């Protein structure tokens, strides 16, 4: 019998910091780079203290040059390092798309496996912080569309640490989107209520040491019989609150990794419940929900008792005012749950 690992109460930022710390402590090939990540410790403080501990050659500030940051990281990775670049907000990642898509994702294939780019791009994403169109977007669907990279989105401190460690150890490039709305506490979708800290959530008990959560393994957040709800990131908590408010026996699945996707867990659940709803904050058209919806239909068609429903952000740019009208919050989830149970 082994002793239970030592745990500490952490919020998501502390858990991410801990994952970086643990990995940097054992692997000298890991370097952390990005805008204000060193001296300043990151705008959300995810890299705080790391420069002091590991020095300026391993934790360093870059100029504001997203294309350059990722391009340089790919070169570093091809020659054996494991860079963990930070893109300060996911909304700033677009200048780096060329390097992510054409270089990081494709290097292995075109060199027939001789060269790879094991980088982990960390980036805060998602809305709910009144950030307007350039600080709120959820661009995960752009990356899941690209073969050659993995896309990971944690929803708790425990998962964030275990998944980030797996991502860093993974030999392929990983886009690691951190839902910034829940850095400091889970969010039930009621923006007018005070924020609850992570300390009250069981997933804030985070082992201080090394552990992994394998990429490609979903979590059943709440088992149930009535309907399967597929979601990830901040929406895991918004959905859980909406389901509790309705008193519905829904099975909530937190995907945790979009690529690779845990289709087995999804399939087993939908075959059991016969209904499936997909929820994400990103816009609907060509969003990851469209892929999920198609997969469920392909795998579970004869078990479905109702059409797959999507509850997502509206197909508009992320708004400045009207944020909560855009957001797929409690009211829209409640209506959609009513509908899918009546279908």
């Amino acid at each position, binding site marked *: 019998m082994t002793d239970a690992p030592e745990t500490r109460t952490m919020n998501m930022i502390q858990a991410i910091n801990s994952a970086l710390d643990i990995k940097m402590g054992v692997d000298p090939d890991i370097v952390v780079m990005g*805008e204000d990540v060193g001296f*300043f410790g990151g705008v959300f403080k995810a890299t705080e203290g790391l420069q002091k501990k590991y020095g300026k050659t391993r934790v360093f500030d870059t100029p*504001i040059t997203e294309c350059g940051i990722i391009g340089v990281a790919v070169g570093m990775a091809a020659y054996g390092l494991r860079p963990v670049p930070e893109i300060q907000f996911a*909304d700033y990642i677009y200048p780096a798309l060329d390097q992510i898509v054409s270089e990081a994702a494709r290097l292995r294939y075109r060199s027939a496996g001789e060269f790879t780019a094991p980088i982990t791009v960390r980036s805060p994403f998602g809305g709910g912080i009144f*950030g*307007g169109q350039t600080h709120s977007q959820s661009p995960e669907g752009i990356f899941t569309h690209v073969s050659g990279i993995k896309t990971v989105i944690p929803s708790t401190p425990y998962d964030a640490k275990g998944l980030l460690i797996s991502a860093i150890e993974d030999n392929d490039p990983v886009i690691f989107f951190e839902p910034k709305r829940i850095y400091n506490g889970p969010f039930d979708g009621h923006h007018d209520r005070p924020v609850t800290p992570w300390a009250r959530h069981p997933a804030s008990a985070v082992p201080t040491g090394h552990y992994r959560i394998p990429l490609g393994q979903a979590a059943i957040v709440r088992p149930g019989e009535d309907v399967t709800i597929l979601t990830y990131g901040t929406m895991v908590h918004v959905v859980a609150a909406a389901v509790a408010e309705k008193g519905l026996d829904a099975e909530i699945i937190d995907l945790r990794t979009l690529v690779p996707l845990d289709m087995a867990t999804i399939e087993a659940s939908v075959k059991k419940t016969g209904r499936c709803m997909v929820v994400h904050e990103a816009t609907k058209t060509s969003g990851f929900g469209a892929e999920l919806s198609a997969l469920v239909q392909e795998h579970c068609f004869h078990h479905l008792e109702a059409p797959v429903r999507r509850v997502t952000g509206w197909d*508009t740019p992320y708004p*400045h005012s009207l944020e909560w009208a855009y957001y797929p919050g409690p009211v829209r989830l409640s209506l959609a749950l009513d509908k899918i149970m009546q279908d």
Partner: protein
Amino acid sequence: MLEFYRQMLLIRRFEEKAGQLYGLGLIGGFCHLYIGQEAVAVGLQSALEVGKDSVITGYRDHGHMLAYGIDPKVIMAELTGRAAGISRGKGGSMHMFSVDHGFYGGHGIVGAQVSLGTGLAFKHKYAGDGGVCVTYFGDGAANQGQVYESFNMAELWKLPVIFVIENNQYAMGTSVNRASAEDQLYRRGESFRIPGLQVDGMDVLAVRGAAEEAVAWVRAGKGPILLELKTYRYRGHSMSDPAKYRSRDEVQAVREKSDPIDHLAKELEALGVKEDDLKALDKQVRAIVAEAADFAEQAPEPEAGELYTDVLVGDY
């Protein structure tokens, strides 16, 4: 000169009020104040012809709007996200525009507006309208790759664009010399053969003088010019920045020695303007700002249907 003073004071008081409204939760999200940098927008834009020239900038854009005499009420209402805001609440602090003034916006993505400004200049040349485009960006943005792609095209095609680097010394928490191999930013155009000038951005008259020179150069068809305006922001990068990367003494020293408003006040007094007159002006400006704040607080939020307007030109 008195008008420069009034404009700078308006920006200062407006931004102080915006900071207060942010503290009260009336302005949310991201808000970047222009306090300390007032002389830049006021000095430069005073040398332009509204209706002929164009201006584009980054996310720290309140001052540039005010320097153009745009109604503080609709600017403040944009910050609070109201339907009466200049972008009808859709843009917010970082994203404000004015067709009437040829003001092509505040832009939230660092450096992205530099290419847009180059395109605006292309249109000035294409149309032969005699206009020039002032393209502002910061010392942080000066390291984005697209800035140099734009420099090359602007000089290659001799476009009428004035590239203005507002060097306030810090890209968020990173000082210029920690992020820039060549920290004399006015030299950044050299390999593209773009001439550069370094200007005291805390002295509105020096800024105005440099602006006149730059405008003359560009209007004469000689191609782009690069101005580095050395300035300083007193507040954090945004409202959530505790500014631990610099000392209080450093900020205090700049305020005491180089404040653009105090500096001009002294010059005005030397010319015989009475202190009481300046005080009366301050009172007027404070009243304008208070009125703008009340308006921005009371104006209604946009209707939910506004979510789906302006996504495309056609029906959506």
